[in-house]
């Protein structure tokens, strides 16, 4: 009797505490976000005859810029007009906080229904089972991807399935300061890597802190355009080994070129982490003559330096005569924890329609539909990016990519600091990446 009472007392206390704490934390077990617009106290017979509109809210997290978010609002309005039963609730986040926020959401079972993920994160999130395999769930998946560029689409593929749709894409090209070029008697940007190195010496004067080229850091995205253009590779296409690829002849040559430029003063020394003048500001003032950047350059420079003439060019061609760069971009994904997968997939599908893609494109977002090539609504400066995208390469679609990126970053630092030769550093990278491939 007493025992039973004690047990009950405990149970009641625990349930009071739990319910109180749940109320206080404001996170009750997620109720389905369904707004019913059924008239009150409608007799049951009438419901069957009258059409009941159930409005489902689909949450969508992204990391868009302000201009992009404005365009997104237009896309949402178009979507909601077409789908009166679905309401899209977008949430904008900072890029650096995005992954922790998603992971916390997954752990707390508060995931958004959909999100726009950086292409390099898709394998990671697929691997932990957080994403819906869209090719299995969407009826017309092959039709949807039929018109997309294969490069961006491939970044959704992991272990036999597609876990997302390519929402937008980008790549990096050369941005050059015409005035600086003309000052030293040059009239056009470099077309080959030999010219790149040659021009760089002409454009640099380290004593006055004037450098031909700079980059925001040493993470792989930074040297990637030159690395790929020089013919570098990280692993074999099947991602089974890095030996002979990241430490292969072409990869070594690519990094050697950058290290040599750094040593002879063509590359601003501060990019290894000292903190210097920002790349865009330096480009405008002529402190740097060339930077390698993405399509957002136009927006950034227009905002801060409207008078500056932005000039783009393809990444200089490597020894084998082809230009290349690195593919960036975002994929739209649906989370396994979503309670409205059907509606979420409908939204994902809509983001890949021509109208949605063009609306975003007008604000500087490169579309993934090849059918839009040459469309007059696309900004003119997209041409060079579209051309570059044809040969640009994706970083490794692998769940351990973040760690691999860090390994390459550190190796690049060792080379620049003269603590390891390029070959030594890349041999070590090969070994470490091989280990990560095995773990993955």
């Amino acid at each position, binding site marked *: 009797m007493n025992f039973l009472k004690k047990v009950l007392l405990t149970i009641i206390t625990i349930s009071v505490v739990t319910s109180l704490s749940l109320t206080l934390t404001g996170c009750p077990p997620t109720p389905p976000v369904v707004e019913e617009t059924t008239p009150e106290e409608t007799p049951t017979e009438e419901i069957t005859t009258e059409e009941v509109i159930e409005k489902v809210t689909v949450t969508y997290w992204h990391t868009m810029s302000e201009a992009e978010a404005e365009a997104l609002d237009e896309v949402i309005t178009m979507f909601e007009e077409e789908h009166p039963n679905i309401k899209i609730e977008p949430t904008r986040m900072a890029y650096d906080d995005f992954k922790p926020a998603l992971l916390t959401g997954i752990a707390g079972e508060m995931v958004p229904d959909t999100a726009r993920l950086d292409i390099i994160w898709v394998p990671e999130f697929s691997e*932990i089972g957080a994403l819906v395999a869209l090719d299995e769930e969407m009826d017309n998946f092959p039709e949807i991807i039929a018109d997309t560029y294969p490069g961006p689409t491939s970044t959704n593929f992991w272990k036999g399935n597609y876990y997302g749709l390519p929402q937008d894409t980008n790549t990096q090209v050369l941005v050059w300061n015409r005035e600086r070029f003309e000052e030293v008697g040059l009239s056009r940007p470099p077309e080959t890597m030999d010219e790149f190195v040659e021009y760089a010496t002409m454009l640099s004067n380290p004593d006055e802190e004037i450098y031909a080229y700079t980059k925001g850091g040493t993470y792989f995205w930074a040297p990637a355009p030159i690395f790929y253009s020089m013919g570098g590779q990280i692993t074999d296409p099947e991602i089974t080994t890095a030996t002979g690829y990241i430490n292969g002849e072409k990869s070594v040559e690519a990094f050697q070129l950058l290290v040599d430029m750094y040593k002879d003063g063509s590359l601003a020394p501060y990019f290894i982490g000292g903190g210097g003048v920002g790349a865009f500001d330096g480009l405008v003032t002529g402190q740097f003559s060339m930077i390698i950047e993405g399509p957002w350059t136009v927006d950034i420079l227009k905002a801060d330096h409207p008078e500056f003439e932005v000039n783009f060019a393809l990444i200089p061609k490597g020894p084998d005569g082809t230009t290349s760069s690195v593919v960036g971009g975002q994929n739209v994904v649906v989370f396994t924890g979503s309670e409205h997968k059907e509606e979420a997939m409908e939204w994902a599908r809509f983001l890949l329609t021509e109208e949605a893609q063009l609306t975003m494109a007008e604000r500087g977002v490169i579309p993934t539909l090849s059918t839009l090539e040459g469309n007059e609504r696309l900004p003119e400066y997209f041409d060079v990016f579209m051309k570059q995208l044809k040969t640009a390469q994706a970083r490794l679609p692998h769940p351990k990519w973040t760690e691999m990126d860090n390994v390459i970053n550190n190796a690049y630092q060792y080379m620049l600091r003269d603590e390891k030769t390029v070959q030594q550093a890349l041999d070590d990278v090969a070994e470490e990446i091989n280990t990560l491939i095995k773990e993955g």
Partner: protein
Amino acid sequence: MEKRPLSRGVNSPSRHPSKVNLKALIDIIKGTLIDIVKRIIRSKGSYLFLLPGMSLFFTFILFPMIYSLRMSFYKWNIVNPAVSKFMGIGNYIRALNDPIFIRAAINTIVYTLITVPGQIFFALIVAILLDQKIKGRTFFRVAYYLPVITSWVIVTLLFEYLFNSQAGFVNFVLKDILHIVGEKIMWLADPILVMVPLNLLGIWKGVGWSAVILLAALQSIPADLYEAAAIDGANFWRKFTRITLPLLRPTLVFLVVVLVIGGLNVYISGLLMTNGGNPLDLSHFILTLMYEKTFANMDFGYGSAISYILTIFVLIVSVIQIKLLQRKVEY
């Protein structure tokens, strides 16, 4: 169980056993609830007052602590915890064999060894100065306390600008004004040099807080002790070492314990200034490494193990400190 007299209110047993059970159960619940209410009334509501605090404590502190302890023994799967792989103390062993973790631990301990004495030393000077009858005393008290209430993020960015290699104020002073160095120093690009702004920031930001605590302690020292010493002909230094310091001892012990815990938990400044361990993963602190492993590499088990190693270390250090430093003050 049903056969026993269950609770008050059960008068006549019904012929249907299931109904008896239900009724009895309701009565038990009723009785228990009345009991709880009675207890609460008897305790004059003290339980009720505990409830909000305790529920917050359970939800936000105890539960996550126990949950992450469990995670630290697994290769944790965040989406489906049920399929997590049990590793035993594998994550702990991995940390102790990981050169990056060892480096992070050394960085954290060195940071603590520099910033704790640094803060106390400067705080003591500031507190003694502010204890004098000087003009504008309130202004100086506010001025020294300002860094404490400023956000870590803002002051870290400020220090980053000061120590910027190309355009930073520190390099400008060292190279262009004082001509002490010939080349601009790459403060933030060197794993050892980056510790200079980090430690300076740690000291600068903490001095005001320690000074306020010490000032309060200074003002509680009876003035007649100093007067008696003055009559005996003691100079300032003698008064300081024989009266001030011994009487400040309990406050200093408190400061050392609290600041050491704070020092070992250094996080925001490191995360921002080194972007999490840059360059070469050599400038990590324990918590920045924990964050990177957990949220960048999605290695939740390993991240939890790292934070538990820190917790155990902090616990041991604190206990030793209190045992060693705490002696009774008699005067």
